[in-house]
């Protein structure tokens, strides 16, 4: 696995890494994926992912009826930066 690939993955998941972290992850991911590749040799004809619980046995969706939710001020208070009951975020579109 090349360093460029590590940087690409880090960009995809929005995770800033130090050089030391990136180097270490390069080795770790390579070793873990080597194990993952062993699955490639298995005969899996006819096997598809399936849900663990048949849908009929699920609790299912509740009635689509509006109920009181969380107080917006309370939700904003959880955020690290808030102003006047709203969540403050960095500029999305740049300068």
């Amino acid at each position, binding site marked *: 696995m090349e360093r460029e690939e590590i940087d690409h993955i880090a960009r995809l998941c929005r995770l800033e890494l130090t050089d030391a972290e990136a180097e270490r992850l390069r080795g770790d991911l390579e070793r873990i994926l080597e194990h993952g590749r062993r699955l490639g040799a298995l005969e899996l004809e006819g096997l598809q992912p399936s849900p663990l619980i048949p849908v009929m046995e699920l609790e299912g969706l509740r009635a689509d009826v509006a109920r009181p939710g969380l107080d917006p001020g309370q939700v904003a208070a959880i955020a690290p930066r808030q102003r006047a009951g709203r*969540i403050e975020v*960095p*500029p999305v579109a740049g300068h």
Partner: protein
Amino acid sequence: MTAPLWTLTAAESRRRIAAGEITAQELLSAHLERIDAVEPRVHAFLARSAEAARRDAEAVDGSRARGELAPLAGAVLGVKDVIAGLDHPTTAASRILEGYVSPYEATSLRRARARGAVVVGKTNLDEFAMGSSSEHSAFGPTLNPWDLERVPGGSSSGSAAAVAAGMAQVALGTDTGGSIRQPASFCGTFGLKPTYGRVSRYGVVAFASSMDQVGPLGRSVEDVARLYEAIAGGDELDASSAAEPVEPWTGSDDVRGLAFAVPDEYVGAGVDPGVARVVREAARALLDAGAVERRVALPATEHALDAYYLVADAEASSNLGRYDGLRYGPRRAVDAPEAAAWISAYRGRSFGTEVKRRIMLGTHVLSAGYYDAYYLRAMRVRALIRRELLAALETVDFLLTPTSPVVAFRLGERVDDPLAMYAVDILSVTANLAGLPAMSVPAGLHQGLPVGVQLMGRPFQETLLFRAAEALSRRLPQPAAWEAGAVR
């Protein structure tokens, strides 16, 4: 000399509260004193609130005075810090949620409290429940009450250690790949991972949503069963919870005529011979109790760990996308010109090494060009493992295996080698991949450390596992950490 109140199981203390011999407040006080004495050495808790606990214990005594006694009346409960409550922060042992107090309560916790449980605190874990030793907690590791130089297992590390050390009678944990059972095994307690969907995940910090399950830990089968009954059942706030009715525990240890198997794939290479010996002793105890042993073959087991880490990390990378530093978490001074760079920097500074490793791996296996080769293939192997296990469970009622291939290892022994750490989950991940119920039962000691055996059964047949667990617990030695371990 009478035994201190903190040595009682929740069922014993409930009987004494019912008889008017003790109060819930006295029971709680004994535990708070025990915590003061032991917690500085064990570090099982991330947050405690004596005030909230006293309020709940007082309410239990008030009900008792009115002639009412809930099924968990007064039970002193530790809660893994991924389960949201109103009285304490919910941090998932991560810097990215440091100080976060949830505005709502998890269904499992709400149900336990409604049935009389008294919460003493939130327990430590590996960050976001990713780990098997607590060494990945951002707030320092928990130590094993049997040997303070060893890990308690993980990720429900504090829950298992608190119960084993007498700081809580019962605890809630979560289990995505063994995170209830493996620490239960390392600390000598009982621990149940219920069937997938059995317990609501509402209010639980998500790791791998198709495998995460909340479950109980305790020092007796009865305590585990009572807490399980309290929290199990459908929940309209979790559409993936199952509506299937919950059978009450009967107290039976009758395994006559039940068939079990010890699959060769679970006791072969890599399993400590001392652990394998305890499993044979457990099998002997079941045979003595009238169960019959058969053979089953589970050849896909050897691929379970490889499939598990691809599936779990893929789901984790998606679930942890929500931690952007904007909506939750502490304020940090981040210098970045726009949102994407700001979020990357915030996340980079806030997640620990193991969480970063998993987010990176999960992102990679879901990305274009790799999805089919890794993620989809792992999901198909998962289907193979489930099919094989369900077929085996048509010929036997349950499987008997080691919970972990090893006993508690030393701090630092595996933390720098992810593959060595992942290897301790090799016998527990299959139950999560297949969605089956599985329970760890203390079955003996090896080199002075607890060994748990795992019972795995058919979906929604938890009560059958309780019967087998009860049969084992009555026939095998059940020493406590304060008798034979490091926290006298």
